[in-house]
Structure formats: C-alpha cells, structure tokens
C-alpha cells in the first residue's frame, strides 16, 4: 500500500512514533517546522505528550548543550535549533562537545542526541537566515549527518536518528516541507549509509542532496527529452557516507555532477567530487562538475537570490558541459 504525504507530515509522524515508543524521547524547541503553513502539524506532538515538548529560551548554544548533556545522562532529546544559521551559535556544543564525547571517553559515554534545523535558501532569508551548515559539519568527526529529501526518506531516517547511540544532525531544507511524495504504509527506520538511487540512468551520475534531489530529478526529465539518461543518486546520509554506491554509479556512467545548495568551497559537492577523483578516477570520462551556490552571501532581493541559487536548469547545463564532448 502506498499513499502521498508531505515531508512535514512524515517528519511529525516520525517524532510521534518515536515519542510513543520511548518515553525518554522529548522535543526541545517546539517549532521544528518553522513559521510556514506546516507549523500546526507539530501541535499533535504537544497534544499527545505535553510534558515532553519544551519551549526553551533563545539560546541555541545552551539548548544544544542541554541536549548533549541530557543524552550523556541517558535520555534521547530531539533538539531543534531553528534556522541553519543559528546552528553556528551552538557550534562548539556540537563540534567540541557532542561529537567528541564517545571517542574522548574511550568508548564509555554514548551521546544519543538528535539535532535538527531548517537550512538553505528559504526565500528572503538574506545572508543571516539562509545558511547550510551540513558541509562544515562533515569536517567534524563524530556526528552522523542526515539529509532527507522526501517524505519517503524522512520518516525512516528520523526514526533511526533518534534510536542511534550517536549524536546525529538532521538537516531539513526549508523549502521542501510542503512537498508531497509517495510513502508506503509500512514504514520502518531506514539504515544510515545506504544511498538511494532515486532514478536509474546510464549516461551521467548526478549525486544530489536534500532539495538538490528534487532539482536533479527535474533536470533528469529535461535531459531525457534531450536523449541523455541521467542516474540520480541520493546519499541520504553524509555520515556514514555510501561511497560504494556513488563509485558504482560513476563506474557505470563515467560522468559525475554533484549538486549541493551551498557555497562552493569545501561544500559536500567538493567532497564527493574529490572522493571520486581519488577513488574512481579510472572511471571518469570527463571532468567532474559541481553545481552549488557561488561563494557569495545570500542576498535578500528576490531576483538576486534566485540568480545565485542552483536549480534544474543549472544541473542540465553542467551535464551538457560534460556530455557534449563525449
């Protein structure tokens, strides 16, 4: 059986089921779906578990450290840090504290906290409400990174994140909350580190993350009309990262485009491109291509914002650049 559901609804379902299943799960930060039209869905959480939904002060560092400390003491908080840019207020708590806990204790102190934020170019977020911290975090060993793209992924990934004995950060792109997709009725936690081939193809591999998956699928349709058969690979988690799946796809197609909506330098797109240039070089028939934002803060003005944000068209261009010469 399958039906359609929004990302936001699947997100809330995952929290509901997690809270029902484990009484040590609580939500710190009661509005993980932001200020948009999906916000009301989170009311279910408070209605069902009024004592396990907390409204903290505006103090992201404090909130993140409370989450980490609580996890060390044996409960499983799901901590919402609001907008991606605000995660930087909690950076030391996540990178220096939560991520190092298990290692630094010699494997004695698990830190089963889950963090969440709404990241990305959300529309009129201007420089300070549009940031995407996931690539920076990928440079911090010790924290699992989850990038759900669709309703069908987010339910199972959040379930796994909360059950995980490790600190985990879930990034939801602010613009995909209302996007519907097919979900099956029997849902279960999804294993981390397993990429999902969102579309099979043989001419080019498009590795895309989060909102990028939507753009990539759209691009693949456009490319199909031009006779180019693109494979869309969604890693779903950056830590652990399914290198095998990416390399296997590139082995088949010989071409790689990586899509990541964030500044270019040291982006996840760069990391994935470098990994393939190192480990899959022999398969590459053309230069790798990265489709990202340029290294510019996100402007408020709508036409400027749009001009700097990756979309399906930019992916099509990138693919054409490396297939034209074939």
């Amino acid at each position, binding site marked *: 059986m399958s039906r359609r559901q929004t990302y936001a609804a699947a997100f809330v379902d995952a929290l509901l089921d997690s809270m029902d299943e484990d009484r040590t799960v609580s939500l710190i930060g009661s509005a993980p779906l932001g*200020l948009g039209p999906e*916000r009301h869905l989170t009311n279910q959480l408070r209605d069902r578990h009024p004592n396990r939904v907390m*409204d*903290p*002060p*505006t*103090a992201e*560092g*404090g909130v993140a450290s409370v989450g980490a400390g609580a996890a060390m003491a044996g409960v499983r908080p799901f901590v919402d840090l609001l907008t991606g*840019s*605000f995660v930087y*207020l909690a950076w030391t708590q996540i990178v220096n504290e939560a991520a190092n806990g298990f290692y630094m204790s010699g494997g004695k102190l698990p830190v089963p906290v889950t963090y969440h934020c709404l990241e990305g170019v959300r*529309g*009129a*977020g*201007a*420089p*300070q*409400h549009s940031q995407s911290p996931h690539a920076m975090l990928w440079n911090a060993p010790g924290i699992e990174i989850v990038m759900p793209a669709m309703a069908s992924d987010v339910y199972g990934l959040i379930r796994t994140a909360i059950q995980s004995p490790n600190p985990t950060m879930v990034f939801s792109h602010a613009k995909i909350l209302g996007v519907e997709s097919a979900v099956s009725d029997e849902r279960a936690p999804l294993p981390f580190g397993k990429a999902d081939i969102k579309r099979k193809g043989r001419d080019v591999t498009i590795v895309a993350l989060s909102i990028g998956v939507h753009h990539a699928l759209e691009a693949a349709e456009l490319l199909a009309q031009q006779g180019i058969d693109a494979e869309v690979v969604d890693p779903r988690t950056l830590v652990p990262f399914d290198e095998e799946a990416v390399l296997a796809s590139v082995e088949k197609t010989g071409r790689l485009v990586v899509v990541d909506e964030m500044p270019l330098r040291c982006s996840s797109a760069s990391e994935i491109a470098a990994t393939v240039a190192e480990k899959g070089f022999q398969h590459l028939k053309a230069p790798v291509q990265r489709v990202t934002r*340029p*290294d*510019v*803060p996100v*402007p*408020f*003005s*709508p*036409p*400027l914002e749009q*001009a*700097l944000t990756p979309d399906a068209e930019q992916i099509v261009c990138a693919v054409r650049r490396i297939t034209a010469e074939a």
Partner: protein
Amino acid sequence: MTTDPRAMRWEFLEKMLLIRRFEEAVGRFGADKDFPGHYHLYIGQEATGVGAMAALGEKDRIASTHRNHGHVLARGADPMAALAEILGRDAGLNRGRGGTIHLCDPDLGFLQTSGVVGSVVGLATGGGYACKMLGDGTLTAAFFGDGALEEGIAFECLNIAALWKLPVIFICENNSADAWGMAKGGYPTLVHASNDLRSIPGSMGIEAIRVEGIDPFAVYDAVSTAAARCRAGEGPLFIETMTRRWAGSAPLWPELATGITDIGMATGRTAIGDGPHRDWYETNDPVLRLARELAAEGAEALARVEQIDRQVRDIIETAAQRALASPFPAVETAADYVFAN
C-alpha cells in the same frame, strides 16, 4: 534637532508619526505580498527610538536588530531608500542585499544590523571599543529586545563593556510588558527566569534604569543622562524601556491589527469605541498619546497635529510609490560586494 523642550515635542511627534505611517506602509506591502519573507514592525515603540536618537550626537554609532525600521528612520534615513530596501530594490539603503531585517545606514553611524538575536549587544560593545580608542568623545548606542538577554553573547559583552568602561548605552526595548505578572510567575519575558532584567547588567556593576518606553521625553532624558556619563568616561549604562506588545506583533506574521492609525482618536474627532484595542488607543499607543497631549493645547495646536499628519502621510505615500516603481538590482551585480578592495 532643537533642545527647546516645547519645540522638541513637535519634532518628536513628527518623527513618531513618520515611523508609524512608514510601518503602516510596510504592513500594507507585506499583506499585498510586495516583498517576501518575515518582517517586524516598530509600531508601539516609536517613542523609544525617537526619544533616544534625539539624545545622541551626530558622530555617535548605533546598532540595531530585526526590529530596526524605527531606529533607522528616527536617525534620519531617507524613507524612500528604507522602503526600497524592504522591497529588495536597487535604490534601497543596502542595495537590496539586506532587506527588512538588515536595514542600516552606515553614513548615519549605523553598524551592522544583525538579525541574529543577541549579536547587536556584542557589535555595539565593539563600537564602544572603537569610540574609546578613537578618543573623540563619541559613544555607541545599542537597541535590542528583551529576547537578546536570553543569549549568552549579551552577557559576555556586558561584562566586557563593564570591565573596559566602554562608552556604550545598552537600550533594551522590553516589549513583553503584557506578559508581566502573568502565568509565568511574573517573568517579564516568556523565557527568562529573571524577574527584573536590570539585575543582569546589575550583576556586573552596570547601572541599569527602567523607563516608560511610550514616553519619548522619559527616554530622551534617560539617554541624555547616560550619554553624558558615557562621554565622561564612566563606562556603560543600561536602560530598559518598557512597552506593551502591539497587538499586531502578537501573531506569527505581523498584521495591522489596530488598523491604520486615526489621528482623530487624538484630536477628539473620532470616538474610541469599545473593543479589544480600546486600551491601546487610549493609553498605550505612543503616537496617539503624544498627539493627544499636544492637540489638547488648543485649536491651533490641534490643527498643527493634523497638518503634520497630512505632511507625513504625503511623504510616506510618495516614498512608497517611488520605492515600488524603482527597479530591482541588476542580476549581474548579485556577486558584487562580497569583498571591499
């Protein structure tokens, strides 16, 4: 700016009305979806911005937050450029890069306007550091909400300002007065355990006073005294300006809940009916309050109030039309201004 108290009242009224009409225009633009994204209006706090700015010198620095429109206008920024910024236009104060949350006018002494709650306290402390280092008798005024005191950065920088005796006036616009003494056990804000926010700067030896934020003269006096002490090298001061939260700021997205301000409610030409906002019109709206006080002085004064309102409406109407008609920045310039050279 005059320092004659009687003349000053009229200047205050004009500035406060300008801010009010500006915010009403922004509210209309917002409702009409003329610009995207979240925004915050200064309605109900006009007396604080106007009273405080009047006490500052031309070379002083200012730092503000997401709720900045009133500060920028009170300091004298061009309403058309401010509106154009909110609309993301090239003629905007910040060439459309910042938008509503980040309006700032460095030519008028503004430092960065940060939308990150708490940051302004730190940036303004840095401003005070520069003022002290330059030794030119200037100071920095920080405008921020009660929420900023939930962030640790505010605490850290109050300490630094106190330790180094920096010339900074911390102006905390506490617009949570409606929550006062309520269910939360008397906490002034929803999420602060402090029963009296002055205790926070107080714990670091910073003198902190509280004034009525709807009375521009009270604010003016407090900031004037603070400024004199800052300039005398006595270090930072903290002023908490109390206002009730405007009904239009209560929902998630601003609404012109109390309608377009009817100056007749101050002049007596419009009766204030019963209704949910009666208290607002009669007591808490700082614009009506000052207008009413002035209009009560006689027919001539009343006429002058009405005339100022008409003038201000004209200014804003013209500014709004020009801003709406002005072009967006050219797409080719999107990557300009990442670095200065």
